[in-house]
């Protein structure tokens, strides 16, 4: 059996009485794009900084190709990193910035020149060699930072919210570039972000951080389709939550009812057994169907009053108030027949496929 490429084992970091991360375990394959996703304060950056060697873990270990990195100082870890803030060396030109890691590694001049040229090609900034960082846009600076971090062919590249200072359009453009560069170089990337869309767009797998622990690791579709708890469900994709009553639980499926509505069977359920008690039913706005009349049985059990209708280009967003006082949102494609003539105050009936919903107990 071969050794996994990168292993984070039982990592823990305390600052005095505050625990920043605890019991973080991740195994990353060579060439994988792994994203740490979570809100600020969830411990994702701390984990990354421990990997970089800027922080020492309180407990746990990091193994690269089976060897512990913990006692190796940052400058000997041979890890690449792109930071949240612009970190180009302001007094050096673009070319000199990319050459910096090679110079400290005592490469020959010819080899450095060739490598700088190659890296500029990789990030599509040929001809920018002599520019100073101050003469470049934020997006260009981060591309140079990427080139600098990859110039010495590090086995692992860390990226700490590298696009958070850029505007949305530029961000998407560079996300594209990062994907392409990941494919071209096959470098293993650990990427930190709080932006779920960015995580979904870029990653092979996502580790969702919350309050210092990893809630779930999986591919984007896995996390979306099978969130393991309420936090993951609300963080990946949009979601509505409705209080429901659990009637029975068996084999990971629940039968439940909402308010005085009919019993709905076969909803995937997570958490401890609370038969007879209350739980949160999670629905995806785009998987809800909307009807103007209470037709049929079962499926259209939930009635609500329209409070707002928003046109968002390809989508129409309908906000509705359930009798329980909970607000639900429904997303319909533009031109959907159910939306025609809909106005504020109308009563609507919502239905869903039990397979697309989840119940979180406790």
């Amino acid at each position, binding site marked *: 059996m071969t050794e996994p490429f990168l292993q984070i084992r039982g990592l823990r970091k305390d600052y005095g009485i505050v625990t920043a991360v605890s019991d973080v375990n991740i195994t990353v394959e060579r060439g994988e794009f792994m994203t740490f996703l979570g809100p600020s304060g969830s411990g994702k950056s701390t984990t990354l900084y421990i990997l*970089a*060697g*800027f922080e020492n873990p309180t407990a746990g270990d990091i193994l690269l190709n089976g060897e512990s990195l913990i006692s190796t*100082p*940052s*400058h*000997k*870890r*041979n*890890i*690449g*990193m792109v*930071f*949240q*803030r*612009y*970190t*180009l*060396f*302001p*007094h050096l030109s673009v070319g000199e910035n990319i050459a*910096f*890691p090679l110079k*400290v*590694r005592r490469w020959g001049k010819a080899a450095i020149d060739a490598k700088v040229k190659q890296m500029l090609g990789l990030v599509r900034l040929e001809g920018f060699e002599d520019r100073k960082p101050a003469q470049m846009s934020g997006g260009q600076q981060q591309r140079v*930072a990427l080139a*600098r*971090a990859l110039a*010495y062919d590090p086995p692992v590249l860390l990226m700490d919210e590298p696009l958070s200072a850029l505007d949305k359009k530029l961000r998407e453009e560079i996300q594209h570039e990062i994907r392409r560069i990941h494919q071209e170089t096959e470098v293993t990337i650990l990427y930190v972000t709080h932006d779920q869309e960015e995580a979904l767009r870029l990653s092979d797998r996502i580790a969702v951080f919350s309050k210092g622990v990893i809630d779930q690791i999986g591919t984007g579709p896995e996390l979306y389709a099978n969130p393991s708890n309420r936090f993951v469900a609300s963080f990946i994709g949009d979601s509505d939550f409705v209080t429901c009553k659990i009637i029975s639980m068996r084999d990971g499926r629940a039968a439940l009812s909402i308010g005085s509505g009919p019993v709905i069977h076969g909803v995937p359920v997570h958490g401890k057994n609370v038969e007879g008690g209350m739980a949160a039913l999670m629905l995806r706005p785009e998987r809800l169907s909307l009807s103007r009349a209470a037709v049929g049985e079962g499926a259209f059990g939930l009635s609500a009053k329209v409070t707002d209708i928003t046109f968002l280009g390809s989508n129409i967003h309908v906000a509705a108030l359930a009798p329980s006082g909970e607000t639900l949102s429904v997303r319909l494609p533009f031109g959907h027949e159910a939306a025609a003539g809909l106005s504020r105050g109308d009563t609507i009936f919502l239905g869903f496929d039990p397979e697309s919903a989840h119940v979180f107990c406790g």
Partner: protein
Amino acid sequence: MLLNFERLGAWKWILLVITGLTAAFLILPILFIAALSFGSSQWLIFPPPSWTLQWYTAFFADPRWLEAAWTSFRIAVMVTVLSVLIGLVASFGLVRGRFIGKEALRALFLTPMILPVVVLAVALYAFFLRIGLNGTTTGFVIAHLVVALPFSILSITNALEGFEKSIEDAAVLCGAHPLEAKIRVTLPAISHGLFSAAIFSFLTSWDEVVLAIFMASPTLQTLPVKIWTTLRQDLTPVIAAASTLLVIVTIALMLLAALVRKGLKS
């Protein structure tokens, strides 16, 4: 309206006249001294009856003036080097450190700036009498270092606070030893702060009068002390010549500072 120059109306002219007069008030005495240094009148009559270089000749012919100038320069250079070095190291501690009493320490380092120099001069004079440092170069350097250091610490902590620490971290991750990262990345990035620390330190020592009067001995005196003792006797135009030379040094340093600032920006 009041903060729009073009729409101030008549007030604009009042402000301009006051500003013009103030500028004249500030610059004319200096120009006046410069002019008198070339005037032939021993009694500093203005306008001078005729023009001459005799006061400059007298200045350069007198070894005591030259020696004083050389002493001033020597001391100022030593103060500059020490002040920037000690200030640099201390600034790293003050900006990057997280220890108890850090802010109090910073305040302590800056107090020599607000304390009346005459108090420090008298206190140091008494202390140096005891340990035999009065009238020595070491004594001069220490005294001037105490008042120059706050300027260094202010300039360098300012620059270091404006420097993004991640840039140094990036250099370390690129493979540079933390010390190499500081020397090759952080120092060039805060060079404007180091430079103004150097200029301020140099000028502080070079122009310093009060401490110098107390530290000086008949065999060791700086240019300001020499001017001071001469002034107490008479207003000889040689002082005008010496003063003009001092002004030229100041202007040269100011231009240098402006040039370097411009060079650093581009």
